[in-house]
């Protein structure tokens, strides 16, 4: 593990930098804060959209990130932001650290763990941010770690699943992974032994545990529904993974290729891998997920690290474990010094950033701020739907589609696509839906089209955005 500390230190510095100084540009935080405020005000987790979404008022909603929303509300500015954003960085680093510890427990050498940790940390970089799914990463790593514990502590995985389900719907993976692990264990042992029975029991309990949240059975139902949800085609994170994704090419792909080359069975000296079928179940399932959608690149890395590092140790002489010997003074010093250096490095970097004003990249804050000053009712269409999250909770403003994304019906998404792609009925859709305000990136096709068709005027413009108002709408003199 000793070399891995250096990797973790670098990753921690990077995560703290990104989290605190560069908040995400997708607008999710805005609706999550708004959700948190709603929950704290009403003491109820909403189960449907409100009138703020004029295209689909009262459509059913499972706000799976409700706990994250509350945290986001408390961490909306000042020191609260530093703590909240820093906690997200800690979550990512904890996931990486747990995966490394897991690899060590499975017999990986220090060099192999550090080598794989480099790729795993790269895999986490691209999708890392102050986001709910980041909180799920350490929970996944911990869940997998506990499944490998041969004893009653294995049942702690059930509690992890319950906590996980209150942060993110990916908790749905917990019972599936445990069931796969139970099956793999049965194949590894060639019988249904105590370990298999325990894992099977964990799988059953985890299936119930993921319902221990404000949504009950609706959470796993929602998560299962995502597999066939057509809105995935509108969200870039759900696009099929390809070699242009740097996190994949330089992160998960190398781990995947090593796994492909080495397989899961045995070592160079014929040492049997006692986890063979369990590894195969995990690699198969998460490999499929990683190749199917870019958002799964990072979780594949978390899963693969504890499998690939021991395989390297078994198969490649360079990565083999050193012969056990009594620790020298240098070893003892290194075991403390390396984590300390890593921690110090991360703290220094983050300390430099605390108090700096967060940048607001690529969010339409300026046109929406200008809109708030224009009198009248505004039914807003944002060419990037996530921008409209910033309009939630603003008096007299309602949105066509915002970053909550999932609860909006398919018809709304189809209309959104028709308008953004300027399909033949795009003007009729805007008319029919009663849109009177459009926020659009300057010079993009929709912006060009609005300039051509007439009936709209520019109420605000800067070098990045334009705010268009319907010429007959309220507020236009």
């Amino acid at each position, binding site marked *: 593990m000793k070399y891995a500390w250096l990797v973790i230190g670098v990753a921690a510095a990077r995560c703290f930098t990104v989290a605190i100084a560069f908040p995400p540009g997708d607008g999710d935080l805005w609706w999550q804060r708004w959700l948190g405020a709603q929950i704290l005000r009403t003491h109820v987790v909403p189960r449907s959209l409100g009138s703020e979404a004029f295209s689909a008022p009262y459509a059913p909603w499972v706000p799976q990130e409700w706990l994250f929303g509350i945290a986001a509300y408390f961490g909306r500015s000042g020191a609260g932001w530093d703590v909240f954003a820093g906690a997200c960085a800690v979550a990512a680093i904890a996931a990486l650290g747990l995966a490394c510890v897991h690899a060590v427990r499975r017999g990986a050498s220090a060099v192999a763990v550090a080598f794989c940790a480099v790729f795993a940390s790269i895999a986490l970089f691209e999708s890392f941010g102050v986001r709910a799914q980041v909180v799920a990463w350490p929970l996944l790593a911990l869940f997998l770690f506990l499944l490998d514990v041969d004893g009653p502590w294995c049942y702690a995985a059930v509690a992890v699943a319950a906590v996980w389900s209150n942060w993110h719907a990916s908790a749905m993976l917990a019972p599936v992974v445990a069931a796969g692990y139970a099956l793999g264990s049965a194949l590894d042992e060639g019988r249904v032994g105590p370990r298999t029975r325990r894992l099977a029991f964990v799988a059953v309990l985890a299936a119930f545990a993921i319902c221990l949240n404000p949504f009950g059975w609706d959470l796993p139902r929602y998560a299962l529904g995502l597999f066939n949800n057509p809105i995935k085609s509108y969200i870039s994170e759900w696009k099929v993974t390809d*070699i242009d994704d740097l996190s994949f090419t330089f992160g998960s792909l190398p781990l*995947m290729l090593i796994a*492909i*080359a080495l*397989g899961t069975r045995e070592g160079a000296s014929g040492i049997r891998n006692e986890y063979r079928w369990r590894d195969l179940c995990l690699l198969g399932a998460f*490999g499929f997920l990683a190749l199917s959608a870019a958002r799964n690149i990072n979780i594949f890395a978390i899963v693969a690290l504890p499998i690939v590092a021991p395989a390297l140790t078994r198969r490649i002489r360079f990565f083999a474990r050193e012969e056990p010997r009594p620790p020298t003074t240098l070893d003892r010093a290194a075991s403390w010094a390396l984590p300390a250096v890593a921690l110090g490095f991360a703290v220094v970097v983050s300390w430099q950033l605390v108090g700096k004003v967060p940048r607001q990249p690529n969010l339409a804050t300026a046109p929406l701020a200008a809109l708030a000053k224009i009198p009248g009712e505004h039914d807003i269409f944002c060419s990037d739907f996530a921008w409209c999250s910033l309009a939630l909770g603003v008096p007299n403003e309602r949105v066509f589609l915002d970053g909550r994304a999932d609860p909006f019906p398919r018809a709304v998404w189809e209309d959104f696509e028709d308008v953004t792609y*300027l399909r033949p009925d*795009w003007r009729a859709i805007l008319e029919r839906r009663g849109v009177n305000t459009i926020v659009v990136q300057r010079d993009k096709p929709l912006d060009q089209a609005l300039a051509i068709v007439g009936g709209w005027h520019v109420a605000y413009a800067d070098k990045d955005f334009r705010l268009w108002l319907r010429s007959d709408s309220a507020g236009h003199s």
Partner: protein
Amino acid sequence: MTAGAAAAQGSERRHEAAVPTAGSIAYRAAYAICALGIAVATAVSPRDNAGFLLGTFAGERIVRGHAIPLHFGNETFTAAGAFDGGVGWLGGLATYALSLAGPAVSIFATALAAVATFAFVEARARRLAGRPLALAAAALAFLCAISSLGVAGGIVTAAFVSILAYVLERPGPRAALVATLLTVVWCNTSAAGVLAPAIALCMAATSTFGGTPYERRWARVAVAGTLLAIFATPALWAYPALALEGLRIDRTVGVVPENPIDVAPLAYHIGFLLVVLAAFAVGARRGRESSIPLLLCAALLALANGAYVVVFGVLAAPILAASAAEAFPALAGSMTASMRTDFVAGAFAVVLAGIAAWQAGRSGAPLADGYALAASLAADGRSHRLYCSNVDWCDAALPFAPNIRVFMDGRIAPYPDAVREAKRDVAFGDVHWKERLSERNVDTVIVAKGRLLSGLVGLSPRWRVVASDGTALLYERGAAPR
């Protein structure tokens, strides 16, 4: 030859003899049924229009001009005279001949290439892993090929790869000679021939780590031979650079799709993922570590351009069969003699072939529309400068030069960067899209329905729709409004 090398060679020959070549009657029957399945799948697979049209155009130019043209002609107005080195001239001639012979002959030739591909995969896997696993390897490779089985698809490349891998696996003077000659033919047939030295190098690494000195020596000779062979084309020294660009692995996003999910969705979802899963299960077993470079390079190639998922399948399947034979000796050994198993394997392959044929036929349906519009332009007898949002559609207009000249067609490599950039600007509806078209006097565009450019062109008063079909619209520019 040293005594050791001779002994090793003798041992190899004895090993060859010990491996049944066509085994039992049951095995032959299963084999024949598989071949039939492959043929059916080829027949129902859609033609690769881009490859077919470009090949026919190139072949026709050679026949008409009695020479191999090394530069673009006046069929394009943005890159006329650009050097393309006549890359793929032999393939062009073959495609032109097939186009004259009719669709039945084309399909038969393609099916033959497919059967040759899988026969060599099976043969390579058989000598590494025994018969049942060899059939399984062929089935696995087939699943990676289901998006490439159409006429002018990637199956010819797969056939070259399959034969080359088979030849190079047992290094020797004959293998080196055959590999060199094969590479000469391949390089003159298509740009993919540039892969030959890379394959030879990866397989030489196999010999370096695990072969005899005799094998190592001849593996190196084969590498040198294939390396020299890639210069035996009309493009001479320029072939490697032109061919590498022709592989379309440089991520020229926006000009053509390259991601596996766009290029070969079915092969990626079924074949590629199955191979990856199988590799997780068996990996490169002990004694097979030397095949890792080939396995990994093939995987990277497939991820860079989905058209090469079939190459990945062809190269990886026998390696995995060998690993499986080591991991599950019972499967490789005892089942070899079982007629029942051979029948089951054959039936399994046929079922897979049937499913794949059905799927491939379904997935490749709406392709010809933009091509038809491009070809229809010639009917009005006027001169046009044509822009196609899908560059492959413009391939259909190439034969109508000089009346119709295109902005860019499917031969992307020789087009200058400025043209590619302008192509992307227009396709994505950049604010300067009108200038990009007018500065080159484009008067007709074919755009996909429902895409950004279609909406923008439709809003512009200077452009009017003159024809449309299922997936595309043909716009013509009118006079400037006064």
